């Protein structure tokens, strides 16, 4: 039998329907893969017992012919989604022992459609980071490894914050995974690990039960091995949720049907401002390659301008910390998670939060508190909101001239563990291409576009009109086909 864990979700679903193998067999194969992958540190909590239960139920449905859209698909769940009765940590010490009594809407939707949960995936603490090195549970390793000039193996980061999700899908120990994206947390790790990552339009997926980082930016999405799998999984995840006031009451279209392969006449915008100074030649090359692929498929490249792009990162690093400083106030040691006692309430707060939050989280809380404080609000937060509106306007104008935007996903391939670690600004630059679409609430997607000269994967980013995930998937599908089969990461070879 072929290696079950190397099947895409669509292939595995077909195999189950054809009774080539059972959901239990598939799940068992994954449970073994998860155990074997422990050195990569991608899971914070493994839930094999739950997975086996769910797989048996799936098999019963397949036997009865009542199988569901994702029946028997062993998924990894980013540990930012609350899962009922299962430890949920946000990769933070401050949530020690927290087992929610409720199920996030996203996981609820996936389980409703028959998905199986392998466990809870590692991430940057509270999804704050671009390398998955801020987790209280330790860094995640990329299944892709590099070579240093001396020829020795270099351990690489998987990107972040959805590092565990990216590693598990890329390393073939989860068939797909949920991610969340605030400024690039799905797309950048997808690019670093050679997988597909889709951040839907803000409001497409419910945020209910997902631990908040920056409420006006956070959006859940699928991380998969193929574009088709992303469509399948988003179909289950998305939809209006009355429990989230920012979720949009709009029917989710048939996403698979959108993948017609026909992009003739489509205008593909190439934002000139994304050609940043000092951009590696490799990135430039992959981008040009992408343009060529789309041209060959009958699309028309159009140069467009997004003039406020250069302010996006600064804007993001005001808005996101501001919201996080408030969102994370609830972790106070009073009702759940870690409590470090003190002589009075204030000292208990200080001890708990000082010990419970890691350095990057504390940094962002401090930045956020500062930009919202009296006397600085107008200069930082209010100004950032105004610039954010300008950035969104840039996109609106660009979409008058084109139907979709094509850009690189990240300014580099995966870097080594330890690199950029002492320089938060260098780390923040990872999100330079992904943050603008986040600020504008637009759907964005990273599709593997082959390997760079260093042998590491690189992704191309597509940015669509609001709620036009269909065009995103249609174009992504064309790129995926043009790029051809992607090599397995060294970890799987």
């Amino acid at each position, binding site marked *: 039998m072929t290696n079950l864990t190397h099947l895409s979700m669509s292939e595995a679903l077909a195999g189950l329907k054809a009774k080539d193998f059972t959901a239990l067999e598939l799940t068992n194969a994954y449970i073994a893969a998860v155990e074997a992958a422990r050195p990569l540190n991608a899971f914070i909590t493994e839930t094999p017992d739950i997975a086996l239960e769910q797989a048996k139920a799936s098999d019963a449905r397949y036997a009865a012919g009542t199988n569901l859209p994702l029946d028997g698909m062993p998924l990894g769940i980013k540990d930012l989604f*609350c899962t009922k009765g299962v430890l*949920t940590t946000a990769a933070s010490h401050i949530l020690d022992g927290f087992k929610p*009594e409720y199920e*996030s809407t996203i996981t609820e939707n996936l389980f409703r459609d028959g998905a199986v949960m392998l466990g809870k995936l590692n991430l940057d603490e509270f999804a704050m980071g671009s390398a998955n090195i801020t987790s209280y549970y330790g860094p995640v390793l990329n299944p892709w490894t590099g070579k240093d000039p001396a020829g020795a193996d270099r351990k690489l980061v998987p990107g972040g914050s959805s590092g565990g999700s990216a590693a598990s899908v890329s390393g073939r120990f989860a068939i797909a995974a949920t991610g969340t994206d605030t400024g690039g947390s799905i797309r950048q790790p997808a690019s670093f690990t050679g997988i597909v990552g889709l951040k839907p339009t803000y409001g497409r997926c419910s945020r*209910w039960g997902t631990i908040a980082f920056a409420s006006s930016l956070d959006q859940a999405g699928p991380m998969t091995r193929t574009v088709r799998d992303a469509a399948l999984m988003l179909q289950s995840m998305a939809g209006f949720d009355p429990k989230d006031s920012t979720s949009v009451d709009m029917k989710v279209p048939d996403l698979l049907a959108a993948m017609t392969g026909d992009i003739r006449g489509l205008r593909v915008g190439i934002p000139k401002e994304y050609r940043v100074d000092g951009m590696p030649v490799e990135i430039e090359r992959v981008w040009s390659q992408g343009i060529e692929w789309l041209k060959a498929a009958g699309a028309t490249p159009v140069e467009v301008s997004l003039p406020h792009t250069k302010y996006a990162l600064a804007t993001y690093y005001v808005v996101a910390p501001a919201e996080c*400083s*408030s969102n994370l*106030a*609830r972790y106070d040691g*009073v009702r759940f998670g870690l409590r470090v006692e003190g002589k009075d309430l204030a000292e208990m707060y200080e001890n708990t939060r000082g010990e419970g939050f890691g350095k990057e989280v504390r940094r962002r809380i401090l930045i956020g508190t500062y930009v919202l404080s009296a006397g600085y609000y107008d200069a930082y937060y209010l100004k950032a909101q105004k610039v954010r509106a300008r950035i969104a306007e840039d996109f609106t104008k660009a979409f008058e001239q084109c139907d979709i935007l094509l850009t690189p996903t990240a300014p580099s391939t995966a870097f080594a563990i330890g690199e950029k670690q002492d320089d938060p600004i260098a780390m923040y630059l990872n999100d330079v291409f992904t943050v603008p679409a986040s600020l504008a609430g637009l759907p964005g997607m990273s599709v593997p576009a082959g390997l760079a000269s260093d042998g590491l994967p690189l992704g191309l980013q597509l940015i669509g009109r609001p709620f036009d995930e269909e065009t995103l998937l249609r174009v992504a599908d064309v790129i995926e086909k043009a790029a051809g089969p992607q090599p397995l990461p060294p970890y799987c070879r």
Partner: protein
Amino acid sequence: MQRQGVVVSLQPSMTSNPLALCPESGHEKPLVFPLSQSAETMAYRIQGETGEWEVVIGLEVHAQVISNAKLFSGAATAFGAAPNSQVSFVDAGFPGMLPVINEFCVQQAIKTGLGLKAQINLRSVFDRKNYFYADLPSGYQISQFKQPIVGEGTIILDLADGATREVGIERLHLEMDAGKSLHDQHPSKTYVDLNRAGVALMEIVSKPDMRSPEEAVAYVRKLRTIVRYLGTCDGNMDEGSMRCDINVSVRRPGGPLGTRTETKNVNSMRFMHAAIEYEAQRQIELIEEGGVVVQETRLWDTAKGVTRSMRSKEEAHDYRYFPDPDLLPLVIEQELVDQIKASLPELPDDKKARFMEQYKLPSYDAGVLVAEKARGDFYEEVARGRDPKVAANFVIGDLLGALNKTGKDITESPISAADLGGLIDLIADNTISGRLAKDVFALMLETGKSAAVIVDEKGLRQVTDTGAIDAVIAQVMDANPDKVAEYRSGKDKLFGFFVGQVMKASQGKANPALVNEILAVKLKG
């Protein structure tokens, strides 16, 4: 040393009689004095060492919205439930929980805004007010800061001196309440009850338009009347469903505004009155001794009857308000506002005007009757098809007076409106006399029985049988032959004596008019 300040006021002091506060304006329409033109003789002034001072008061009233569920969660809101029994994960600030606006609370706020003749803002924004406290689970209170749901409005005060006065409403906004910290349950620990956390409040902010403790009390009283009429807040200060923060400053009469302080934790009208007097006095002393008033938050100490500083400037909160990204701006359709407007009940000012018009009641009586919606309803039921003045006299003079003595309100009246009407009917059809009616009323109050039952049980039915009255008169005349002779010789004054004797002999049941009529004939001889 507490220096003597002389309070000069021409207004009657506060009494416990609720009727004393109702105005007698003598006008069909409320008469409104612009504050700047208020007559000098009516002004409330405090005499300091260096001259007269004027007090400037603005109020922030937190009114708990009547609703089954909380502002942003489905948890129940009933008062007095077991601690932490009405708490959702949203209220407790659990990870991943999101607020969803309770539309009914929004409607209640709109309704209140309309009742205050205020501007309804079709677009408003919820903000987060950030601070740490154990009874604030999420670390922020969701409130409305820059763009409240209700803008400027007005409220008409009914003052004890008979005048009415307009006070401006600055704004009304919706916000969630915090939980309760219980410091008295354990020697070293504080317990937290989150039942109240997330309950909807309307913060109603007045303009600094009040100039005396009486006006401030009248403002809260009127506000309470209005929200009770609307059914948007039960107005129970003792249960904390209406709480008041008082902004007080002092200035030379008509001079520039002074620095204000905000006094919190004032939970009764009596304490409000006392807190304002104390705080004004304190500020005057401070200024006159060469000090300056610091803008600060103070706390009313109920036990000591003083206000004291709550926190120093260093400890002052920076609330870091910003729009709540979990909630979209609140957009209301004008149609909804129109619907609510069309469904508004008759409000106290309108009802008062109608009572004066329809029942020809004096302003004072009308004011007393509309002060509570239940009173007005009760009165109208009593007055229906009866003499409205007689009905007003019984409701105000007899019933409210009696209820006030026992601290009850009209909804707890042992006499129903129908029964009080029945009593008035018995007078109207001569079954009992007006004098006997007072006795019957007292028995009704005591027993809760109807007038007819009491009259029958006690045999109090008025005697209108002339034969029976003839017999009693004959009996009285026979017993007093000397008085009859004196009367007949011209001592007319004795007529009253005979009436009294006849009434006494009939145990008060004889119809007084008939007694007079027959007696006059018989005595003539």
